């Protein structure tokens, strides 16, 4: 294999990984940006997406249908949680209450998943049209990973355009900057918060459905992913959508290249990158330093 082909393969590996990381980190950062809540349950919500996607896939026989059903179901679960429990804490100044509540949600959801689907891991196949490899400079590369890259890029552009150009996107950005003013202008801020929380959960669920064919759906699958997502959000800047894209790509490249060239330091490299960014820009690459 030539050197260029190898580097290209590694770049594609990193981009496919960045795509899944983007879906979970983007949801996390949107929720933080609007609500100033660090959602500790995000990893379990990602896992719930994988399990709901598995069931939808089994019932309908379509992976693509599961990609729609899982985010809708999980988004509704997220919205129900926000409306029934999270909302009562908005008046409190301490962030600890949010941490405890979302941590509690993570524990409860994990047990619910265990009771419904059991401890046995569940294998999710990929559709036939995404099976197989394409040969890129003598290097086989899975079609499914190309699909991940394409979907990630498409989703990033769509969400960016939505936030920048659509009226609901404008409202979301306005609420993140000054919710009291938006409320005074007659917008139902509570509704915006509910919708954003549900949307963030739905994005994590998409990540779960996409990750299941790579790692299978199993209890605990969200644990390490959510740590990666937190690192991404810190690197990109808490609440910054563009930051979550840049963070996802950076973390994925560091993981892939680190695993190849610095095997013994593979885990530490991601945290070293985070430390480096925090030293240079304490608020993250595109975040505010407040």
């Amino acid at each position, binding site marked *: *294999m030539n050197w260029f082909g*190898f580097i290209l*393969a*590694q770049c594609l*590996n990193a981009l*496919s*990984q960045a795509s899944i990381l983007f879906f979970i980190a983007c949801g996390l950062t949107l929720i933080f940006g609007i609500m100033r809540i660090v959602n500790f349950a995000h990893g379990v919500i990602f896992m719930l997406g994988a399990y709901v996607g598995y069931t939808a896939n089994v019932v309908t026989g379509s992976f693509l249908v599961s990609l729609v059903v899982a985010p809708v179901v999980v988004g509704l679960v997220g919205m129900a949680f926000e409306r029934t429990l999270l909302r009562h804490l908005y008046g409190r100044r301490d962030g600890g209450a949010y941490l405890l509540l979302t941590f509690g949600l993570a524990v409860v959801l*994990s047990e619910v998943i*265990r009771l419904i689907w059991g*401890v*046995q*891991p*569940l*294998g999710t*196949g*990929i559709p036939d049209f995404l*099976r*197989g*490899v394409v040969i890129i400079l003598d*290097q*086989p*590369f*899975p079609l*499914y*990973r190309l699909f991940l890259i394409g979907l990630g890029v498409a989703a990033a552009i769509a969400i960016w355009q939505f936030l920048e150009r659509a009226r609901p996107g404008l409202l979301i950005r306005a609420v993140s900057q000054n919710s009291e003013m938006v409320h005074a202008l007659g917008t139902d801020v509570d509704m915006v918060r509910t919708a954003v929380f549900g949307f963030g959960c739905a994005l994590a669920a998409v990540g779960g459905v996409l*990750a299941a*064919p*790579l*790692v*299978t759906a*199993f*209890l*605990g*699958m969200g*644990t*390490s*992913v959510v740590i990666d997502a937190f690192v991404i959000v810190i690197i990109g800047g808490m609440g910054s959508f563009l930051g979550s894209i840049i963070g996802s790509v950076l973390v994925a490249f560091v*993981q*892939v*290249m680190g*695993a*190849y060239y610095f*095997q*013994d330091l*593979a*885990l530490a490299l991601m945290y070293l990158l985070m430390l480096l960014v925090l030293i240079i820009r304490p608020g993250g690459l595109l975040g505010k330093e407040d």
Partner: protein
Amino acid sequence: MTSKEKYRVKAVTRRQVLEATVAGTALVAAPAFLRHALAADPIKIGIPTVITGGYAILGSQVQRTCRLVKKMTDAKGGVIGRPIEFLFQDTQGDPAMCVRKSQELVERDNCRILTGVIVSSEASAMLPKLEEWNAVFLSHGNGDGRLTAELFVPRFFRANTSAPMGARALALYLKDAPEKKFIAIASDAAWGRSSNAAFEEQIKAVGKDLVDKIYAPVANKDYSTYITKILQSGAQGCYVALQGDEARAFYSQAAQYGLAQRVQFFTEIVAQADIKVLGKDSLGLVGSSRYPVTYDIPENRAFLAAFQAEYKNEIPDWTDGEMYQALMILFAAIEKAGSAEPTKIIPAMEGLDVTSVKGPVLMRKCDHQGENQGFVVKVVKNDKFAEPVGEIIKTYPREMTTPDCRSASFRAR
């Protein structure tokens, strides 16, 4: 009919009286015997295992086999006339938590027999405490070779095939295999490193070349980098010492890259849970098996039948087979000692030779390692089972696959 003839017909003969007496005694005495067994103090066995967390599936297999064994053993009147009681604690796969939960089992529940520990690092964390606890610890599945070598303590026994033993069986098989160049990928944990080190030593000893070795971080999810590295290495065979979530992620992603068409996989542990999830992607996988479900001997046939009757045709995994074997060895030692006291079980278990579901096993005295036969299997479809299973392609005698005493090496073999 005369009155004399009538009398003869209605008369109860001496034989009938004797038969009725024997039957009546048996009828009354049998439940009394069972009542006695079940009323006696139970033999408590502590199971500090993984109930939640990444290795929960292995813990669930330990629990289901324990429940089955309890049912089977109590139905036979228990062990030394006493019923069995299993007490489960969740260690979450964390060594510190495992020590804490084991201490609870010992001090609060008075369990002096411990088994069912999942992770090797948990097992090694427990070893220094066994003397203080006055407990005996029997491994059913801990693979780290050091546990019966440099970490040896007199109160620890290993009934199962260790990582070096699994690697040894595979290396013996690969001696005659067409593949010349190998690459190894292992979990960066005590078991994975132990397995890889043993494979490296063994494969070089049979004259083959190990071109590279990869240690993937524990709980790693993306193997694309490593798969690219394997493709680049030019190796014809890949030794895989990954299990659980890691193994499934690796094989799923390797299948997507079409890696199996370029490189033959050889694994230290063939796990049914992985086969179940991977489905047809698992076909053709060759590996060492700690418990080959297809092993056709009466002991295994009986276990398989009981297991499938209890769990609706579920196929027992290697953890089930190894857990069952460990408990059979433990019960044989208790019967031999006539006591469930650790200080009496230890000498009884040393040198104990038992025929289990995996054939003859000798609990050797010098390092408390169970001498197990080595099995190499290939994953194929089998009409008797709903899923593909490991079919035995080679069996090695226990003397060939067990390392030197208090060592993970095979220099004297």
